[in-house]
């Protein structure tokens, strides 16, 4: 069976309807376990004290903020190349989730930064690129709302998504590009020596799994709503024409 069959709205609705309860259940369980484990059952860090508990929200939300934009980039490219409406609607559906993740990362980063760095905000490369990514999410959503023709809106937002990808990648690699600023390097690494201690690592992995599952559930639900919205507009247009 070809992957492109899922670009058929009917097939997408059938498949997403089956996946949605599992993704929602997994998100609820993994988020509860990860956050409760991290908050109640992990020790304080020897340098950061209890603020280390913010890692279970800050790191997954920041990862999702960047990865959701990458997912939007892929679906936007599929729209531009193959003109599958479901892919454009999936990108549109993902944007508010990405914006929320970016806001959570920025808010928890400020709350974590104040006691550790002595400031809520600094024009650090990673923080600044993340703020720009947040503005790109807002611009992307505003552009969808501003254009009446859905195909034109999908075209223009896809181009905006390509441009914004530079900042999504910068947000991820800014610390490596510029060895300056307050923000430390990646908390998770394939190199065991670079990683956070196991006592923080495992609850963090569960929390990340919860955020990923939550994104999948919300993205499927929002895409289903967008597909129904498209059908509704088609029906209303047909009635007006009759």
């Amino acid at each position: 069976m070809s992957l492109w069959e899922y670009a058929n709205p009917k097939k997408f609705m059938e498949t997403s309807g089956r996946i949605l309860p599992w993704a929602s259940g997994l998100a609820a369980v993994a988020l509860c376990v990860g956050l409760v484990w991290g908050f109640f059952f992990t020790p304080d860090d020897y340098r950061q004290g209890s603020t280390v508990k913010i890692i279970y929200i800050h790191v997954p939300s920041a990862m999702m903020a960047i990865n959701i934009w990458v997912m939007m980039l892929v679906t936007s490219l599929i729209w531009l190349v193959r003109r599958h409406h479901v892919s454009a609607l999936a990108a549109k559906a993902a944007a508010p989730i990405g914006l929320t993740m970016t806001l959570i990362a920025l808010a928890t980063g400020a709350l974590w930064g104040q006691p550790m760095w002595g400031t809520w905000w600094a024009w650090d490369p990673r923080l600044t690129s993340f703020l720009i990514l947040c503005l790109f999410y807002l611009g992307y959503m505003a552009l969808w709302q501003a254009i009446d023709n859905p195909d034109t809106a999908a075209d223009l937002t896809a181009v905006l998504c390509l441009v914004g990808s530079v900042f999504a990648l910068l947000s991820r690699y800014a610390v490596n590009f510029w060895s300056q600023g307050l923000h430390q390097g990646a908390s998770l690494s394939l190199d065991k020596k670079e990683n956070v201690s196991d006592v923080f690592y495992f609850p963090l992995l569960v929390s990340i799994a919860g955020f990923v599952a939550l994104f999948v559930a919300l993205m499927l639900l929002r895409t289903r709503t967008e597909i129904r919205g498209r059908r509704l507009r088609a029906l209303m247009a047909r009635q007006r024409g009759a």
Partner: protein
Amino acid sequence: MTMVDLGKYAVPVIGSYVASLALLAALVGLTVWQGARMVRALRQAEADAEAAAQATETDHAH
């Protein structure tokens, strides 16, 4: 489950959790509400379209 002693960092830690969970709850609530509203609107429009089609058929029969 015991109450965790967050010491002098209680405000930023609890603030982070409360702000994040509030944002996530708002996103989930809005998504579910928009989805339910769209399902209702689509059902109504499909029922209207079906009724209009039947009315047209009846007119043609007469």
